Structure formats: C-alpha cells, structure tokens
C-alpha cells in the first residue's frame, strides 16, 4: 500500500505504509535534507505512534508544524511515543541524513497486547495528561537492529522485489519492530520503577558537557587557532570520551561536527556574494584553500566554485 501524505510537498521519497501481519502498521522515512521539517505521517486513526530515529547531523523535535513551536533536541537512536493525530515533526539542521521507523499502534491493538500492563497504563496516562511525547533512548544493540531494519526496508522500497529471500522481509521488519517496541516499553517501565534505564548516555553531566562544548564551538569555530585540543583543555575530558558522546548525540565525530559548522557558515557567506572563495576559506579558519574545497565537497557534494556559479545563475 502506497500513499503520499497530502500535506507533504517536500521532495521526499514516497511514504510506504506497510501493514504488519500482527496488526501494527509501519512506515519507513528516509531522506537527506537541508533545513527542513519532516512531519510524522498521519495514520488517520486513533492510537499511538512510536518512532525510532537515526540520523547524522542536527535534529530537533518540534511539537507542531509552525516555526514557533516548542522544540527539544534529539539524538540518534531515540525512540518516542505520542498519541496519533498530535502534530509533530523533526526539524533538521543543514545536510542531515535522516531515517526513521514509524510504528502505528491502533487503539484496538492495545488491550490485546499491552492493556493488562500497569506500566503501559501509566504511559497512557502521562500522554493523556498533556505530555506530548515521551522519549527513551535505545541501546547499542537496538540501534544496530534499527539501522539494519531501515536498510533492508530501503532496499525493498527501491523496487528490487525479486524472488529469493526477499519475501521474508516483511516478517523481518515485523520482528525488528516488535523487538524495538518491547525494548522501548520495558526500558520505560524500568525507569518508572526508578531503576536507571540501560542506555549509554542519559547522564545529566554528560549532556551539560556536550551543551557546553557546543556553545564553545559555535563561539570560536571560525578562529584559525581553534583546535579540538583547545576544547579538551578547556573541559578536562579525553578525546575519546568526547567523541563518543558526540557520536551518540549527533551521530558524527567532533571534528566532523566542527567541519560541518564551518562549511555551513561558508555556504551562507558564498550566498551573500561579497567575498571571494579564498577569502571565505581563510575567514572560517582554513589555512589552505584546497583543504577547504575538499571539505565543502564532502558536505555538499559540489565544489564551492560550482555552488557559487549555481547561485549566480539563479540570481
């Protein structure tokens, strides 16, 4: 079953909603986008929507479709549950590759499989009492399961639906979906009981450290004396620790993060069309122009010169 979300005009892959045999519905979102809102698909029915997301870059969760809505930061491997019909979207930063497995649990499904459980009732209550979304981070195991499920689902929708082991993929998707759902609910359950959920980073200290580093980066990233070492000295952390935290929040290493920041900035500067490319490269802290061109190409798959020409031809 295929359908295109009517409100969705962005050039995104057609959404494929699959009905899983067990009664759930699943959709796979996949896109490489640049500063965009990715809305949750509308299932036109009462129930709960649980999405598991994975991405590389900056993503925030907005509870609504308009720019002024409340936002909260997301991290790769986050699972979130909300009541179906509530508006919610993922607001992405520059050049983000984003993938999500969206599960829809119809209201009728709940009493059969979840209803008898007090933990789920508590969850339902929280959702009714105004909590828009409830989140829970997946563990590493689950994250790898998620990404492999997203990968196979991607192959499936790209049309290679030939004979072989392919027909089992729906069942495969169902298995991953159920496993993730189970993990999500159990982990929520555990945290309700007061046991700390088993995830890699949930620690307030770590989060505040990351926020501190982020603000430090956004302040100094254009200076040519700025290095990762200077961050380490300032925050008293090891490179590996910091990288690990960055990966779990942004899905990329700290140097990739800094590079993306710089290149993003340079892109804006090119669009302003005031300075030459070599000037820009120097200003955002690159000491050699060829390094800068390579970096730009890595992020946007185009050289800055060609990008400039494109902009000029549009103007």
């Amino acid at each position, binding site marked *: 079953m295929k359908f295109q979300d009517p409100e969705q005009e962005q050039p995104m892959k057609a959404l494929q909603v699959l009905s899983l045999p067990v009664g759930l519905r699943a959709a796979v979102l996949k896109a490489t986008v640049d500063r965009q809102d990715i809305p949750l698909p509308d299932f036109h029915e009462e129930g709960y929507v649980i999405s598991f997301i994975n991405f590389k870059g900056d993503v925030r969760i907005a509870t609504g479709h308009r720019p002024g809505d409340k936002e909260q930061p997301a991290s790769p491997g986050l699972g979130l549950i909300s009541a179906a019909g509530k508006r919610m979207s993922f607001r992405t930063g520059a050049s983000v590759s984003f993938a999500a497995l969206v599960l829809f649990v119809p209201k009728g499904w709940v009493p*059969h499989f979840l209803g008898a*459980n007090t933990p789920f009732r508590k969850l339902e209550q929280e959702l009714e009492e105004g909590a828009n979304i409830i989140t829970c981070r997946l563990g590493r195991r689950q994250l790898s399961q998620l990404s492999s499920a997203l990968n196979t689902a991607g192959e499936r929708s790209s049309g290679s639906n030939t004979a072989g082991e392919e*027909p089992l993929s729906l069942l495969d998707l169902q298995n991953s979906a159920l496993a993730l759902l189970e993990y999500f609910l159990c982990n929520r359950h555990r945290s309700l009981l007061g046991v700390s959920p088993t995830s890699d980073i949930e620690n307030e200290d770590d989060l505040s450290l990351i926020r501190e580093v982020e603000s430090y980066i956004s302040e100094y990233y254009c200076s040519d004396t700025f290095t990762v070492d200077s961050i380490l000295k300032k925050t008293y952390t090891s490179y590996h620790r910091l990288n690990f935290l960055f990966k779990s929040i942004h899905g990329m290493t700290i140097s990739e993060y800094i590079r993306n920041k710089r290149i993003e900035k340079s892109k804006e500067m090119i669009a302003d069309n005031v300075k030459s490319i070599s000037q820009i490269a120097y200003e955002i802290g690159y000491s050699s122009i060829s390094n800068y061109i390579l970096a730009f190409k890595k992020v946007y798959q185009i050289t800055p010169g060609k990008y400039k020409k494109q902009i000029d031809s549009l103007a």
Partner: protein
Amino acid sequence: MSYVSLENSESFLKCFEVIAEDKSCIVSDSVLYFSGKTGKGFITAAGINTGIEVLALNVSMLTDDLTIRFQPSTDASSYILHFDEIEIPAKGDSDLPVTSMSGVEKGHSAVSIADAGRGKTIVYPRERVIRSLIVRVRKSSLDDLIKDFDAGTIGAILDSPEGPASLTWPITFKYRLLLNDFMTEIVQHPFRELFTIRNVSMLMEYLLQQFFVMQKLAGEGNGLSSQDTRSLSRVEQHLCSQYKKEFPGIEKLSRISAMSPTSLKTKFKRYYGETLFGYYQKNKLEHARKLLDSKIPVKVVATEIGYSNPSHFTLAFKKEYGFSPWHYLNPH
C-alpha cells in the same frame, strides 16, 4: 496420566483447569506452576482473543505423561504449530522420534505445522526436560503473515486429502536458543503478550526459512529412514554441544552416527539444510553473538567460544553476519 482435550474453539486456558484439577498445581496470573510432587516448571498461556494463541510449557521431571489432544472439527480454520524440545535430562541427549501410530505422536524434539481441522494429539513424556510452544494461529492470520511468501505451498500440502497430516522438521539450534531465552523470561516479563507475540513472530520466520530451504533441497520427501534421522539428530546434538571446542572432525561424527563420512555429509545436508561445518559454525557464532549482547568484550568472547586468536573470530563473525563484532557493538 493427565489428559486434556480441547475443542477447536476452546481457549488454551481450559488446559489449566483440567491439569490443575488433576494434579496439585497452583494457577496464578495465567501461569500454572507444578508443585514439587508432580514435576517442576510451569505452563503459561498468552494471546487469548488475538487470533494467535500460545501455550508455553517449561517443565521437567513430570511424574506422569501429559497428553494434550486437539479435537478434530469440521469448521476448523486454524493451524497448530509446535516447537518442542525434549531432552533426557541426565545424558543431555535428545529423545528420539518414536514412530507415530495412528496420529498419536509420542513427543520428540521437532518443529511441525498441522491443520487443526484434522485434530492432533501430543504426548509429553514424563521424566524429561521439556520446552515447548504450541501456537494456534487462524488460517487468515497465517496467510497474512506469509502472503508475500510462497504462501500457498504450505496450505496446499496440508489441505490436500492424500497429503501428510502435518509437516515436520528437525529442531535446530536457532529454535533451541530462542526457546531457552523465552522460557527464562516469560513469567516475569512486564509485557508478556508483546514478548510472546514477538517470539512467535521470530519462530515463524525461522519456520518459513527452514521450510523454504528444505523445499528447495528435498523436493518430494528426503528419503531418510527413521534410523537415519535418529542418528542425524544425535550428530546435531553433539555438534551443538561442542561450540566451545574445536570442530569434532568428520571421523568422530561418522562414528557417532554409524554412517560413512560421505553418506553422513549428504544426509545431514538433506535433513538440516546445512553442511556439518556450516551448522557447527553458525551455532558457535550465534552463541558468540549472545555473549556480545551481554556486554562481554570481544576478546573474551573469542576465547570463550574456543578461538585462540581474536582476529580469527572477527573474520569468522564477519563472514557470517557481514559486519565485524566491533561494528555489531558500535553501530554508528
């Protein structure tokens, strides 16, 4: 001897009443616990009213045989699936198929699917370690489940009047691992129904995969005598138990099976759909994966499953799953 008889429409919970009446059992929260006098373990049911109904047995040392009989009925529209693992406790050896007489199967380790309409009787023998799942699934649900798949075939085989009453396959390490996990967690799992349905869904996938492979390999019948299958499951047991050590070698295996190496190889492949070494290796790596899941470092896992060199382990793991153990742990 406990004897439970179920109508086609009756819920699995009915079982409990009968068994509990017969023996001094304790029923609480849809779990039936055997008391020490009559055996150890529990039976639990899940998925009532959902189209897929599951009865899970995890018992050992019953003092009596336990018989569960599904009445044949005309308006039947469901399948009965079985995943049974039955061990003789002391020797750890599998109980071997006893020739079934007039549709009554004396329990043995196997996976099977049967049309509920024809009825079925299962006997769980006493003084054994039994892990078993009985799944009753509506035909429509199963068709949904495998509609993408080569669905017609299973139905057609079971429906044809001259065909077999049930399709049976040998149990493999995959089922065994899953059943083990399932039984340890099911009773205190906070989301029992969800947990059950997930595991059943995985079992279905295994079953379909196995069906698919066997169908390709065998065509019509695999031409193995019951003595052959007995020897083969002995070999399979031995292979599985050896996952911490080196591959036992074809001479040893052929001695166990009392077959010539060549015929052992061909027959094993025909029965299990896998070469001897392939089967051994898959089982080993599946164990490794479970160890990795419980946060044991790669190096330790490698030694644990009998690799002297961690990089050999990494290579083997990569060959099997397509990614290295390290990538398995760090999916970013």
